[in-house]
């Protein structure tokens, strides 16, 4: 068994920014170094008009190689408008 998944927050961030044209990507590595647990806030206008399921599917497609290596992947997907409404 490998000790680390080889997945880093930076890698996830870059892929999401590049492929989803995400304006904001906040990735938090909760794994304590093993690369198995990440929480993400993803803000992209590509999510507009899509159901939550469709948004997650978009993210899953971008991170096709990475997600299977992560045990705990918790994405939150917002459009710019929704994200601003959260008051952040």
């Amino acid at each position, binding site marked *: 068994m490998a000790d680390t998944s080889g997945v880093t927050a930076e890698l996830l961030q870059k892929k999401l920014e590049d492929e989803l044209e995400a304006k904001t990507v906040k990735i938090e590595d909760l794994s304590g170094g093993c690369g198995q647990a990440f929480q993400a806030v993803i803000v992209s206008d590509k999510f507009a008009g899509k159901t*939550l*399921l469709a948004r*997650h*599917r978009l993210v*899953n497609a971008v991170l*096709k190689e990475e*997600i*299977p290596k992560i045990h*705990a*992947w*918790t*994405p*939150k997907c917002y459009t710019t408008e929704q994200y601003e409404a959260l008051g952040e």
Partner: protein
Amino acid sequence: MFSRTAFSAFRPISRPSALNAVRAPAFTLPSVLHARLLSSETKAAIDKAVASAPVVLFMKGTPETPQCGFSRASIQILGLQGVDPKKFVAFNVLEDPELRQGVKEYSDWPTIPQLYLDKEFVGGCDILMSMHQNGELAKMLEEKGVLVAADQ
């Protein structure tokens, strides 16, 4: 929460036992084989599993003893929503490597747990949690008539 009867194993409703002998060696290989295609036997078995109850959860562990926090959270949400145990079946993917991998391809969803409602994929734990919080899940479960009657 859910009674024992709500739980049913994948194996009994799957396929002829002769298949076990054939597929056994494959699982001694490393998980690099993730990419292999879903066999028609596995697909048929999952079709059957998905259709076995109105509410079907593929999870790690059992409803009584979940083996993962996300599976636990999903079970708790379904319990809080008041899903009728008679209309609910859980499948423990840890008991069957073929199911564990197969269901990911079947649903085109990379993680476990996975919830199906009337044979339709709803989502994983995050989606369940969001839908629980924004009221969509209650509405959906109500519409599908899978909740315990209020006067019980």
